[in-house]
C-alpha cells in the first residue's frame, strides 16, 4: 500500500446532487468521506450517499455479456453480443423498435444514446422514467411559465420565508434539501406540509400540516387562491407587469364553492385560509413538490394550480421562490436536457422538421426523424424490438403483470444494466455496464447544476460505459464517423454545440466543486442560480395563468375495492432497489416491504401489526406485512415501491391521456384481505 487518493464525485442516487469523496487505495474504492466544500451538501450525506460505493462491489454485478439460449443465459464476447444486436436492429423497421434509457446514465451516455437512435435507427422512439416522474410537470409549467425546471437553487431555499412542501416526503426522499428547510426555519421561515400521510417531514418540518384527501391538492390550491384574492393579498404589481390571464382565473375562482373544496380536500376552510395567508404574506415563498403532485391523472392540473399560486403572489424570479419540481434521479434534469425523449431533441428543441434539419447539419447526416416518437408505455406495449438501458420497468412501470407479458412477447429484448434486474431476466441479451465510479461524465441534478462525475476505478470485469457500447454498435452499423468519440470530454464538447443551455460550460470549468447551473450561454458566464428574473421564457415573456379545474382520480374506490392505494419511497432505499438492496448496510435496515394501514382500518379488519395481508386491485395482487400506524388517513394504504417481492405496481394501472400519459401511480383502488 503506497497511496490513498480522494476522488471527488457526485452521489448516484437522488437529484440533490450531493458531493462525496471516494477513497481509493491500490485501485479499489475502500470508503467514502464527506466532501465538505461541496456547495449542495457541505459534507452532509444521507445513508444512501454514505454507502454509495458499496453496490459496485456487489458479487451480483454483471461481468460479461449474456445471451439467452433455450431460456438460459450464457456468457458471450462483446463482439458476438453486439454483432447479434446490430443485426437485429438493422433488420427491424424504425417504427417497430424502441429505446428506454435512464437517469442512471451520464449526460454523455444519454447524448450518445439519443444520437444513435436518431442517426442510426432514424426514429424518436425513446423515453425514460421522466415519463413517470415529470411528464405532467413539463406541459403544465411550459404552458404557465415557459419551462419545467426548478427555478431557484436548492441552496437558496434557505432564503425563503415560507416553504410549501406538497406531495413529497422531503426528509426521507431528499434529506439534503430538507436540511435547507431546517436552516430556513431556524431563520424564521414558516413551513407548510401537505400530505395524506403524517410523514417524518410533516412531523419535523411543518408549522402547518394538512392531511389532505389523496389527489385533492388541486382543489386545495384553488381554494387557497380564492381566499388570497378575497383577502386582497395578490401581488397586483407583479400580476400587471409579468402575467396574463388573471381576470379569467379570477372569474373561475369566484365560481368555486369553498365548502365543496372543504369536502373534497377534507381540510377545514379555516385551515385552508391559514395556509393561504401564511403563503401569501411571505416575502419569498417557495413551493417544493414531487411525485405526490405529479403522478396523478390530473397531475397537469395540480401543477398548473401551483404555478398559478406562485404567479398570483409574485413568487417567481427571486432566490427562495418559485414552483420547484424535485428530481428523483441524480441525472434527473440531464435526462431531459440531452433529449433522449420522443418529443425533444437535445436542449428541449421540439421534434419537428426544422429541428431535424438543424441536427442533420450538426451531425452531418440525412433523414433524421421529425415526428414525435412513442412514449415509454407505448414502446413497452407495442415495439417488437426493445432496448432498455438502466431502466427497470418490471418494477417502475404501472401494472406489472401486463408489463411482464409485453416484455415476454418481444421479438428481441436487450437490457443493458449493472445487475440482473427483474427486467433483465426477461431479455434475450444482457449487456453489463460500468457504474458511476467506473466512468467519467457529467450529470445535471434538480437545480440545473451540471457537475462532473469522476472515474475512481477501472470498470469491473468486462463491463463498459454505456456510451462506449453505443459507439461500438454505431460503428458496426456503418456510422463510425458520427460516433468516433474517444472520451466523455469529447462528447461534452459536442453537447455544448447543440444544447444552448450548456454552451458556456466546459470540463475545465467543471473542475470547480460548485459545478455550473444552466443556462450558461458563454464561457465567462457564471451560470444561473435563479430563473425568470427578468421575464418568463414564454413567447410574450409573461407568465400565463391557466385555469386548473379539479378532476377526480382515474380509478375511485368502490364497494369491491374500497381502499385508496398509494406508494412512495423510504430513506433507506432507492427506487426499484437495484442498488440499495445490494448494499448490505441499507438492506439490513429494511430488507422487506410493508403496507401502512390506519389504526382504524386495521381494527375494522382485525389486522394487527406484522400480520401478513393481501392487497388486490383490478390488475393484480401482492402479499406484504401490515404496519399499523396513526400517521396515515383512514381509507388509505401506503407501500414503498423498492421491493420486487411486493411491488406496488402490480396494483397500479390507469394512466392519463396525452400529452403526459402519466400513470396514476399515487392513486388506485384496492381491497385488503388477511392472509
Amino acid at each position, binding site marked *: *500500500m*503506497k*497511496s*490513498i487518493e*480522494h476522488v*471527488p464525485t457526485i452521489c448516484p442516487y437522488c437529484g440533490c446532487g450531493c458531493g462525496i*469523496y471516494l*477513497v481509493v*487505495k491500490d485501485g479499489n474504492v*475502500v*470508503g467514502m*468521506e*464527506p*466532501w*465538505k*466544500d461541496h*456547495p449542495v*451538501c*457541505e*459534507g*452532509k*450525506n*444521507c*445513508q444512501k450517499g*454514505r454507502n454509495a460505493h458499496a453496490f459496485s462491489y456487489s458479487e451480483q454485478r454483471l461481468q460479461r455479456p449474456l445471451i439467452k439460449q433455450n431460456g438460459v443465459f450464457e456468457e458471450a464476447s462483446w463482439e458476438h453480443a453486439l454483432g447479434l444486436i446490430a443485426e437485429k436492429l438493422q433488420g427491424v423497421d424504425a417504427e417497430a423498435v424502441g429505446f428506454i434509457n435512464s437517469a442512471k446514465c451520464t449526460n454523455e451516455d444519454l447524448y450518445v444514446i439519443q444520437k444513435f437512435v436518431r442517426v442510426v435507427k432514424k426514429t424518436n422512439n425513446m423515453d425514460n422514467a421522466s415519463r413517470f416522474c415529470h411528464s405532467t410537470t413539463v406541459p403544465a409549467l411550459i404552458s404557465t411559465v415557459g419551462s419545467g425546471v426548478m427555478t431557484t437553487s436548492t441552496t437558496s431555499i434557505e432564503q425563503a420565508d415560507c416553504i410549501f412542501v406538497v406531495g413529497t416526503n422531503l*426528509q*426521507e426522499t431528499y*434529506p*439534503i434539501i*430538507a*436540511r435547507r428547510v*431546517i*436552516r430556513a426555519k*431556524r431563520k424564521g421561515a414558516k413551513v407548510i406540509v401537505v400530505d395524506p400521510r403524517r410523514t*417524518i417531514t410533516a*412531523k*419535523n418540518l411543518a408549522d402547518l400540516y394538512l392531511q389532505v384527501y389523496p389527489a385533492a391538492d388541486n382543489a386545495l390550491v384553488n381554494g387557497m387562491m380564492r381566499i388570497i384574492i378575497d383577502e386582497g393579498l395578490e401581488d397586483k404589481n407583479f400580476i400587471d407587469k409579468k402575467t396574463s390571464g388573471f381576470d379569467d382565473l379570477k372569474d373561475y375562482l369566484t365560481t368555486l364553492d369553498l365548502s365543496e373544496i372543504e369536502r373534497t380536500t377534507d381540510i377545514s376552510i379555516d385551515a385552508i385560509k391559514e395556509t393561504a395567508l401564511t403563503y401569501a404574506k411571505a416575502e419569498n415563498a417557495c413551493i417544493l413538490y414531487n411525485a405526490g403532485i405529479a403522478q396523478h391523472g390530473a397531475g397537469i392540473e395540480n401543477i398548473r394550480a401551483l404555478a398559478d399560486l406562485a404567479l398570483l403572489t409574485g413568487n417567481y424570479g427571486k432566490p427562495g421562490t418559485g414552483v420547484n419540481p424535485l428530481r428523483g434521479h441524480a441525472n434527473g434534469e440531464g435526462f431531459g436536457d440531452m433529449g433522449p425523449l420522443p418529443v425533444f431533441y437535445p436542449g428541449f428543441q421540439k421534434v419537428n422538421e426544422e429541428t431535424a434539419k438543424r441536427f442533420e447539419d450538426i451531425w452531418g447526416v440525412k433523414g433524421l426523424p421529425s415526428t414525435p416518437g412513442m412514449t415509454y408505455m407505448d414502446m413497452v406495449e407495442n415495439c417488437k424490438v426493445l432496448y432498455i438501458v438502466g431502466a427497470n420497468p418490471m418494477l417502475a412501470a404501472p401494472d406489472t403483470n401486463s408489463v411482464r407479458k409485453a416484455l415476454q412477447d418481444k421479438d428481441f429484448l436487450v437490457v443493458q444494466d449493472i445487475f440482473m434486474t427483474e427486467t433483465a431476466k426477461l431479455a434475450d441479451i444482457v449487456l453489463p455496464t460500468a457504474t458511476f465510479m467506473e466512468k467519467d461524465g457529467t450529470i445535471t441534478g434538480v437545480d440545473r447544476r451540471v457537475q462532473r462525475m469522476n472515474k475512481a476505478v477501472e470498470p469491473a470485469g468486462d463491463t463498459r460505459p454505456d456510451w462506449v457500447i453505443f459507439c461500438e454498435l454505431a460503428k458496426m452499423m456503418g456510422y463510425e464517423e458520427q460516433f468516433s468519440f474517444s472520451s466523455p470530454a469529447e462528447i461534452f464538447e459536442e453537447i455544448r454545440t447543440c444544447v444552448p443551455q450548456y454552451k458556456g460550460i466546459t470540463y475545465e470549468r467543471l*473542475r470547480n*466543486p460548485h459545478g455550473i447551473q444552466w443556462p450558461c450561454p458563454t464561457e465567462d458566464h457564471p451560470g444561473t442560480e435563479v430563473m425568470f428574473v427578468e421575464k418568463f421564457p414564454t413567447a410574450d415573456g409573461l407568465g400565463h395563468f391557466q385555469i386548473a379545474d379539479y378532476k377526480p382520480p382515474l380509478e375511485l374506490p368502490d364497494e369491491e375495492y374500497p381502499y385508496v392505494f398509494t406508494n412512495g419511497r*423510504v*430513506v*433507506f432505499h432507492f427506487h426499484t432497489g437495484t442498488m440499495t438492496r445490494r448494499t448490505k*448496510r441499507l438492506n*439490513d*435496515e*429494511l*430488507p422487506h416491504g410493508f403496507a401502512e394501514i390506519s389504526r382504524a382500518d386495521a381494527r375494522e379488519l382485525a389486522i394487527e401489526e406484522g400480520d401478513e395481508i393481501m392487497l388486490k386491485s383490478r390488475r393484480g395482487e401482492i402479499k406484504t406485512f401490515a404496519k399499523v400506524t396513526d400517521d396515515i388517513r383512514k381509507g388509505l394504504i401506503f407501500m414503498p415501491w423498492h421491493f420486487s417481492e411486493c411491488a406496488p405496481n402490480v396494483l397500479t394501472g390507469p394512466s392519463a391521456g396525452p400529452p403526459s400519459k402519466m400513470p396514476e401511480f399515487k392513486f388506485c383502488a384496492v381491497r385488503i384481505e388477511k392472509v
Partner: protein
Amino acid sequence: MKGDLYLAWSSDEKIREKGESGGAVTALLKFALASGIVDAVLAVKKRNGNRYDGVLSLMTHPDQVIESAGTLHFATVNVAKEIKEYLNGANDMKMAVTCKPCDCRAIIELAKRGQINIENVILVGLNCTGTLLPAVARRMIRDEYEADPDDVVSEDMDNAKFVIKLADGTTKERELNKLEEKGYGRRENCRRCTINIPRMADMACGAWGTRGKNATFIEVCSPKGSKLIEKAIEAGALIVEPADREAVEERAKKDKEAIELAEAWEKKDLDVLRLLPYNDRLKYWLRYFDRCIKCFGCRDACPICYCQECYLEPERGFVKGGETPPGMMYHLVRLAHVADSCVNCGQCEDVCPMEIPLTKLYYMLNCELSSLFDYIPGMDVSNYPPLTTVTDEELHIEEVNVLRRKQLR
C-alpha cells in the same frame, strides 16, 4: 529532550518561503521522510489548489512534502479515522502525521483501543484555535469581507481577529466574536475547545511566542519527538534557537486568552442546558433526535467508534431497523459508548444532515464525566477511559451530575 522549547525554521529557502512561520514543520516532515525515520508523511493538502477543499495526502517522496506547506483553516479532515480505516491503523508503515490537538487526541484514543499502532506514528502537533467549515468560510468571506472566496491566499486568527489575505496583496480583518455571533467563524465545537497546544503529541508547533520572527515555536513533548528534532538539527535541515522567556510568556499569554474565550463560549452554549430541569433536558434532545434519519453519519465519522459489530446495527436488536427517526436508544447508546472518550473533534456534527447539535451534547456530558473522574480523553495512551476502569465506589454515585450542580449553586 522532552520539555525543550525552540524557535525553529527551515534551512531551505524554498520551504521558508512556501511554508508558514519559517517552514519548520515542512522541514521536519521532509527530513523525517528523507532520512528514513518514517516511510510516509500524512498531511492535509489543498485539492486543485483550492484552500477550502483540504484532503489527506499520503506522501512517500521527500519532494512531495512541500505541497502540504502552509496552514489551512478551512480543512476539517478526519485524520484519525482515515488512518484507522484506510491506512491499516499505521500497522504497515511508520508515518509522521500533522495534526490538530483533537486529531492527536483521537489518534491516542484509537491507539488505546488497539486500532492505531502508535509506535509507528510520529504526531507532529499543530497549535490550533479552531477551524471553519468551508461552506461557512465561503459565505463569511463573501458576505462579511465582501471578497471573492477564491481570491483568498492565506488566512490567520490572531488577537481575536480573523484576517484574510487576498491575491492582490490586500488584507482584511474582522473581529472573530462578531463574526461568530452572526453564525460565521469557527465550528461550534472549536469555539468551546480549550486545548490549543497539542502537548499530547510528540511535539507541539505553532506561531505563538515567535514575536514576529519568521519561525515556529516548538515544544518537544516526547522522546520520540525529541529524537526527530535533534536529528533534523544535526543534519542541518532545521535551524533552532532556544525560546527565551519572553517567547515562552507570550505563548502562554496567547494560550490563556484563547482558553478564556473558549470558556466563555462553553458557558454561553451549555449553561442554558445545565439550568434546564432534568425532564426538559431530555425533551430538548428528543426534539432533535426526532429529526434523525438514521444515516449513521455521526457513528461513521466518530473516531472513537471503532467496533466491527456495532450495537446500533439492526441485527443486534437494540435499535429496530428501518425506522426513521430511529428509537431513542440509537442516540443514547452512542452517547453512553463514547461520551467518556469524546475529544470534541466535531466530526459528528460536521456530517449530520439534519443539523443536530451533537457536539454540544457530547461535549457537555464529557465535561461532566471529566470532572467527575478527573480524566481527560486523548492525553495519554496509557490512561484508559473511566467507564472501562470504573470502581465499585464510583458505580454507586447516584447522579453523575452532582459536582456540576454544586458549582452552579
